């Protein structure tokens, strides 16, 4: 499957990654090579093969409903880029 620049632009927007205009061509080329390589899979017959998400086919263990965490706001917010009154600050959110 080949991929066009406008598709890369769309994917980059989904992934929230800015790619400079002059780089988009090269990025597209590289990704096209990777996609060409992975396209080998399309030829494999996987009828009736169950997808495998976990290599051990293990199942989930459950946690007891107990509060184990303490308030560590100070430690966490000491490493935050912008906080005020205990809140993380971001450019205005529009709903």
């Amino acid at each position: 499957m080949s991929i066009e620049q406008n598709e890369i632009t769309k994917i980059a927007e989904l992934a929230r990654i800015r790619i400079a205009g002059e780089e988009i061509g090269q990025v597209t080329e590289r990704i096209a090579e990777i996609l060409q390589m992975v396209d080998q899979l399309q030829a494999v017959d996987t009828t009736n093969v169950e997808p495998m998400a976990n290599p051990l086919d293990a199942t989930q263990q459950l946690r007891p409903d107990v509060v184990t965490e303490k308030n560590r706001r100070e430690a966490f917010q000491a490493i935050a880029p912008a906080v005020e009154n205990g809140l993380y600050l971001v450019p205005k959110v529009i709903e």
Partner: protein
Amino acid sequence: MYTKSVAQLIEGLRGREFSSAELTRGYLDRIAALDSQYNSFISVDENAAMAAATAADERLASGDAAALTGIPIAHKDIFCTDGMRTSCGSRMLDNFVPPYDATVIQRFKTAGAVMLGKTNMDEFAMGSSNESSFYGPAYNPWDTKLVPGGSSGGSAAAVAGLLAPAATGTDTGGSIRQPAAFCGITGLKPTYGRVSRLGMVAFASSLDQAGPMAHSAEDCALLLNAMAGHDPLDSTSSNTATEDYCATLNNSLEGLRIGLPAEYFGEGLDSTTGECISGALRELEAQGATLVNVSLPHSALTIPTYYIIAPAEASTNLSRFDGVRYGYRCDDPVDLHDLYTRTRGQGFGDEVKRRILVGTYALSAGYYDAYYKKAQQVRRLIKQDFMDCFEQVDIIAGPTTPGPAFAVGAKTNDPVSMYLEDVYTLAVNLAGLPGMSVPAGFVDNKPVGLQLIGRHFDESRLLNVAHRFQQATDWHLRTPDAIARGVA
């Protein structure tokens, strides 16, 4: 002192031949003097290391020592360390000092180990050469014009360069085994779920696994004893019972059946590397093992399968790096969209961005079935190949890599050729199996690694085979010429 194994250092510390403070000071001095050549460390905190060493000496003196008390160890900079920068090789986390320890770090603290520092790595563990690090490449101590492999390249270089007796690494597609092979050391990727992933910055959740990197199999066993075990805070961590991985190191190899997959010895394998592997296999045969020809028919599909699953998982694992709660944030964002796109555009390097884009594409509407679901199905076929082999044999053996370490810069502009470096290691992660790389010879003074692959949770057997092999060979005891001559 710096060529001693961890096992020997433990004896030395207990026999009061030297103190942990002396040992730690010695390694710190070597790092200060020599690491400009290898660039194997991203962060070193001498004061913290010396304080830990002094505390270890007190424990040793009071007779209250744990298994690794006083042993200096380097940690890959992917494990979160309370109060010490954890960069993951990325600009995104260049300023990130976590207020918590990874479970692996916590376990090494409990076992008494002293942290020397945090080692260089490919950015977010994405790479096979350590060249994608924000902190520049690490260099191979056997020849600093060569890459040390990746992504745990800093750990491998530090151990090979005798800047640390042992180190931790992580392996998503070969990131412990390939650098171990390139640097002439021993590395073990345990079974998926054997070691906790908590506090280890995630690359691909269903493939990532932490493991030890050291000179010998015995040292790897000592480290694995400290690392392995169920973690209730990691849902994917296994509660299969752990073993004393040192207990069976000396078991006889008589009757051991070793499978040799045809696909691992065909076209693409460097011939001299192949000869080294054949030599190693003859040694195992001499010790009573039987060699059995087997086949892993879906081997050709491991690279495409891996390069869908790993980027897909990575693309969303890395969504949390958004400049809001920690890490890099772009200057003066004009709005929320600008904050996200510029923070991530500037904070991530090229290879990471490439993989995020590939993964996003593979998961996006209209492509999910063709890519992600298909890859998950082929993944099951790949695992089934191994399960079928293990009906006939006890372990599988082959080369770790198609050839020895390549030159710095040789593949940086060709991602796909870089991906091919992992052709023999990826399947092990897809199938969740334990795998090792063991030094098995040299090609033009460049180390070659023998890969051993075991059944799920059969780390003991791999370590046993590797240890017996190392009892009869000295590849793992060789050190780079410059170091041996005392130049480095």
